[in-house]
């Protein structure tokens, strides 16, 4: 076990899988130069063919990854920033997500689309989206949103080994966070299994990506007030482990969903709806959402930072469900 950062976890996952399987290769903009620190030493180890710099041509190289995956390769595409997926939207939605279905299972697309959610750091509206909810409405794409380095590594390795397309949404606010990660080359976190990050009995907080750390901080605060908060991290949004979420809510009778995405049709909204549909009779209070309001993200940090979920906003929501 070593204490590693989120970025180092990504590097290790990619390095190990490139070493393990010759069909795995990495491509994207500036991957050779190691722009974010997730490809340190890769060109030396694997060569420029498998660590492939692309033009700024997202539709082109996402589509090329789809084609390569259909002939037996296992591409990892580094889209760098999540909003750069938008120029490739048709390739993601019409080709990557649908080819298996459209052709009745004849196609197999084992590819990973990696992207960082680059928010909370004054990069303004075009660089700051957390767009996984829009892809949750597109069947055929698995979606991982890890909240710590160990999950990041284990989920990314599972994604690379998965025979389906997987989108990896990597929360940039977690880049420097550290946790212990097993040294085992076959350390995998299964896709579709939620993790109870903290056990509790009074309120279930179901938190996504970077908001898990805030949920844990809020749980600590509330513990001092005698309120026991359970923190559930879905880890993957497609497939979504509704069983673990519902078991938690049935136990506590109260639920708050926390999601750094915009509120409308967020993962928080989908999880809330699932809870209300399936565990209504167990609820002692309305299900609350703590999300980012439906406005764009401004440049000025003074007005950007308060828009995201925070420990304070989660604490306020916990108090509210405890009072109702």
């Amino acid at each position, binding site marked *: 076990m070593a204490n590693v950062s989120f970025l180092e976890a990504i590097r290790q996952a990619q390095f190990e899988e490139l070493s393990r399987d010759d069909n795995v290769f990495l491509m994207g903009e500036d991957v050779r130069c190691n722009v974010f620190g997730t490809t340190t030493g890769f060109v030396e180890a694997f060569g420029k063919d*498998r660590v492939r710099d692309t*033009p700024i041509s997202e539709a082109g190289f996402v589509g090329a990854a789809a*084609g390569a995956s259909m002939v037996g390769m296992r591409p990892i595409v580094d889209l760098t920033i999540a909003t750069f997926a938008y120029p490739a939207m048709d390739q993601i939605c019409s080709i990557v997500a649908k080819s298996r*279905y459209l052709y*009745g299972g004849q196609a197999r697309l084992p590819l990973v689309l990696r992207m960082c959610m680059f928010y909370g750091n004054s990069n303004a509206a075009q660089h700051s989206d957390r767009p996984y909810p829009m892809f949750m409405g597109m069947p055929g794409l*698995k979606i991982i949103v890890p909240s710590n380095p160990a999950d990041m590594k284990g989920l990314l390795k599972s994604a690379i080994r998965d025979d389906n397309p997987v989108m990896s949404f990597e929360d940039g606010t977690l880049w420097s966070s550290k946790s212990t990660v097993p040294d085992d080359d076959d350390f995998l976190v299964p896709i579709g299994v939620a993790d109870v990050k903290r056990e509790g009995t009074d309120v279930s907080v179901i938190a996504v990506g970077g908001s898990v750390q805030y949920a844990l901080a809020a749980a600590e605060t509330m513990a001092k007030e005698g309120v026991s908060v359970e923190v559930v991290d879905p880890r993957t949004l497609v497939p979504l482990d509704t069983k673990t979420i519902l078991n938690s809510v049935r136990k506590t009778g109260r639920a708050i969903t926390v999601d750094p995405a915009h509120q409308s049709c967020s993962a928080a909204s989908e999880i809330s709806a699932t809870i209300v549909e399936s565990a209504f009779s167990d609820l002692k209070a309305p299900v609350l959402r703590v999300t980012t309001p439906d406005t764009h993200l401004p440049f000025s940090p003074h007005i950007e930072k308060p828009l995201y979920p925070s420990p304070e906003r989660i604490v306020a929501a916990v108090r509210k469900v405890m009072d109702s």
Partner: protein
Amino acid sequence: MKKERLELFRRMVLIRRFESHAEACHAKGEIPGSLHTATGQEAEIVGSCMALRPDDYMVGNHRSHGHPIAKGASINPLMAELFGRSTGVCGGKGGSMHLSDFSVGSLGETSIVGSGVPVAVGAALGASLQGSDRVSLCFFGDGATNEGAFHEGMNLAAIWKLPVIFLCENNLYGVSTPAAEVISVKDIAERGAAYTMRSEIVDGQDVEAVFDVVGAAVSRARAGEGPTLVEAKTYRFAEHAANMGRVLLERGLELEEWLKRDPIELYRSKLIAGGTDADELIAIETEIDDEIVASLDFARNSPYPEQSEAFTDVFTEPVPTPAWLNVVENGDG
């Protein structure tokens, strides 16, 4: 060589007859959805595909029926797909715009214009990373060459020197819009220059000319000399799609002129002039008619997919079927 020529003829006729029967069934309501025929374009389709090896890759488009037939697919699963049956090549999930048979090297017939271009490039990239000498053929229309995906795919293939044959089926119209009005160059082949890509123009009504031009491009691609853009000048005799309710394209004399250049009749004349017995060609056509009738029987007698099939092939594992949905066995209910 004679055998090869007769096969070029046979595949063109097979596409023509397959589509004419499909149109009749579509008009009767037996085939649901939309139906885009390639009548008039058979020479560019067959000439290109016959220049490939069976294990080479191919990506097509919404005008999809001819591509798999030309690449050697069996027609029963193709016809059954048009009828939405479980025995269809895509299990009834794709239909007319997506007749893709992976067993003959197809990697999809994709109905968003231009979207297949990067995919074909990726297949060539995969082949090259695997050290194989397979090449990748991509069919797209004139309209696709205004799409970003086309230009991005062309650029990638050029910079990485990939074994791709970009085959532009220039049939002069995008639905009703004349290509000449919306494309910045006179010949689409000129667009290759922007990517320093070798480009060729070929008479798309002449099946042997297409076979030769694409064959040369395939040889270069296999030899590591990179991609070629081939513009086949052709014409679709029918509307953009069958049964659209009204005439979208007023073509007048233009259609009459092009009908004189029917690729099948042109080739029939050429073969007969070269010494082939006309009766031999008629025998091939009779055989094809029997094959089509058999495929219609196969399609009509095949079951519809079960409702549960709507939930398979989303992922490699099935997705859950909702409890409210009655699962109807062989559901035509």
